[in-house]
């Protein structure tokens, strides 16, 4: 079983600044994937970034990076140089995987964090 907790219901940041969204998780799986999804006000969910648990190096996608602390079961998302288009609900999610990295099961989502970027 997996649980994902996002303790920040809402966050705000000024344009061009950096913001970090928090996520903690609990899982009984030996291997797993962690994700951050973005859901803009139009409601279409988009995958932002993905991390496989056995990889030590933190994933990075342009202005988006994660801080994966496996022992602490923490998976935070850092958005650098925030843009107005980053305004959205952000969901952290987890998914189990086997030792070979093949994922299985169902995505478990956190409650979400509403991020507002101010001009």
């Amino acid at each position, binding site marked *: 079983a997996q649980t994902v907790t996002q303790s920040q219901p809402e966050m705000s940041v000024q344009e061009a600044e950096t913001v970090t969204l928090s996520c903690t998780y609990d899982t009984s799986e030996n291997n797993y994937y962690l994700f951050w999804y973005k859901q803009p006000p139009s*409601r279409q969910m*988009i995958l932002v970034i993905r991390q496989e648990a056995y990889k030590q190096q933190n994933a990075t996608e342009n202005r988006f990076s994660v801080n994966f602390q496996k022992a602490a079961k923490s998976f935070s998302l850092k958005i650098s140089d925030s843009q107005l288009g980053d305004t959205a609900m952000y969901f952290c*999610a987890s998914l189990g995987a086997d030792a070979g990295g*093949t994922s299985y099961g169902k*995505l478990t*989502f956190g*409650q979400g964090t509403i991020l507002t970027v101010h001009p």
Partner: protein
Amino acid sequence: EAGVAQSPRYKIIEKRQSVAFWCNPISGHATLYWYQQILGQGPKLLIQFQNNGVVDDSQLPKDRFSAERLKGVDSTLKIQPAKLEDSAVYLCASSLEPSGQVKFFGPGTRLTVL
């Protein structure tokens, strides 16, 4: 590449009425998912199809919810009869592989039950 299509975008019904949602996944995607997203919560998987077979429907309230994907392409989700607590956004998603890693979501159908 066209995205996941859903219709209608919005639906308002009275409790005890029936409603159906339609989803057309990305072409070639064998795996299709229906999620329920209640306001203020993360999406919850209702059902997962691999082609036209059900992979996981453990969280589908089968007394009132049903879903089908007869030809392994588009899918319908039905609620009959609807309850107030069914008010939510219903998201459809698809992926190439059945691994559960969802990359492509549709815009969702917002259902309001009065």
